[in-house]
């Protein structure tokens, strides 16, 4: 299965786009028209997503349907809501892991936890939480640091399907070894296996970890700020946006953070060239943890 998906991902054998007379400029027009149509017909706004990734995902769908061009996919998508649903799954990349980048969690413990201790009540926003692994990871950390009970955590994603999985809190058993290693390197203070039991063919996580968590749908492109936060985590989400859209979403984060609030990005993301770059100070580089200072 995995191999089969991998085969289609490379898209090296697409009939039309390999032809020497193929016109990349025309393809760009087709893609822009398709995304415009999807937005106007269904309300999903992918128009300012990073082009290379969108193009790659669209071709995956085109090939799987045995079609030949972006325009032919457009025709199908606009007339068939089920095709739109398929495309939506193609366009959303939900890969995640518990304690992904253990060094980040270690640094968070050392440098952010002390800041959070100074507040009687903390509000945290995971923007683009996918299936929730990151939310459970941070919840464990907060509990171990004695901060969980004063935390209110909002976990949002554009994709309803992944939010349902996050709520269920059942993750693949076969990844527990990897997560245990990550947990230890992230400075975990207990035994990782205390947090889950083998059940329903997976690892069912301690439901009290989500006692203070609200999972809800939120689209970073079209929805507005809904509260003020001490910490916003948005890791490996903005990489799918173009720079203009990244900048716009940074405006949303800036407006949603209290002064001295903390913004966390993925390990290969930056605030460079963003309008709000000057408003933040990076705490403990190379981790991408920033403090709003003005």
């Amino acid at each position, binding site marked *: 299965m995995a191999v089969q998906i991998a085969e289609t991902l490379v*898209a090296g054998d697409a009939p039309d786009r390999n032809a020497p007379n193929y016109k990349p400029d025309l393809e760009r027009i087709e893609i822009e028209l398709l995304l415009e149509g999807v937005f106007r017909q269904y309300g999903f706004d992918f128009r300012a997503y990073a082009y290379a990734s969108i193009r790659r995902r669209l071709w995956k769908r085109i090939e799987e349907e045995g079609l030949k061009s972006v325009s032919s996919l457009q025709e199908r998508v606009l007339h068939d809501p089920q095709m739109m649903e398929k495309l939506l799954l193609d366009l959303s990349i939900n890969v995640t892991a518990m304690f992904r980048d253990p060094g980040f969690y270690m640094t968070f413990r050392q440098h952010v936890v002390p800041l959070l201790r100074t507040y009687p009540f903390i509000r945290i926003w995971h923007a683009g939480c996918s299936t929730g692994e990151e939310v459970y990871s941070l919840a464990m950390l907060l509990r171990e640091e004695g901060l969980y009970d004063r935390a209110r955590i909002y976990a949002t994603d554009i994709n309803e399907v992944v939010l349902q999985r996050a709520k269920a809190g059942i993750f693949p058993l076969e990844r527990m070894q990897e997560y245990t290693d990550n947990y230890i390197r992230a400075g975990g203070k207990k035994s990782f296996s205390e947090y889950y039991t083998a059940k329903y063919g997976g690892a069912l996580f301690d439901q009290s970890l989500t006692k203070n968590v609200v999972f809800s749908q939120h689209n970073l492109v079209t929805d507005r700020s809904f509260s003020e936060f001490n910490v916003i985590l948005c890791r490996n989400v903005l*990489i799918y946006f173009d720079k203009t859209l990244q900048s716009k979403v940074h405006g949303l984060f800036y407006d949603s953070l209290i002064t001295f609030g903390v913004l966390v990005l993925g390990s290969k*993301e930056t605030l*460079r060239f963003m309008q709000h770059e000057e408003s933040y100070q990076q705490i403990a580089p190379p981790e991408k943890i920033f403090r709003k200072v003005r």
Partner: protein
Amino acid sequence: MAFSVVVVGTSWGGLAALSKLLGGLPADFPIPIVVVQHRGKESEHLLRELLQDTTKLTVCEIEDKDPLKACTVHLAPSNYHVLIEQGFVSLTTEDPVRFSRPSIDVMFTSAGDVYRSETIGVVMTGANEDGARGLRHIAQLGGRALVQDPKTAEIPIMPAAAIKAVPKAEVLPLASIAPRLVELCQQANQVARLKTV
């Protein structure tokens, strides 16, 4: 016709091969170079430093939306795929492709899509077949395909697979790859000058 990007893929034995290749390029080599070297999840800082010691070009680890620059080696970070865009790079965390993330095929394919005949792809030593499909894509779109002669490779599997996928690729001993890149880029400049006269 000028070239816009050189993409390089290697795996097992890649550090030595990359050192030789990058060490052989002049400090003013004008075409941005993007490198995928397979490696463990958290070894990137070390690799950057090791490579920097071997070359006069600037070696940097890619961050999302980094602009492609002359005289620069852009190194794919571990655990992300690199996609080439018009003048910059994007990262993605999609699943590994044929067990690799970063995948050479994914990066090469995106380079070919954007720069077509202005792309030079180079496949060197490695113990798997990543890179072969990507190189074929580049070649089909009119780009240049260079492959390290498997006889000079620490592990011949990867270059051999690339040659099989792209029979018309130029097969070169490791020591000749850098000089060939310099030559290609000078030829391109001459043609460009002729055109402007």
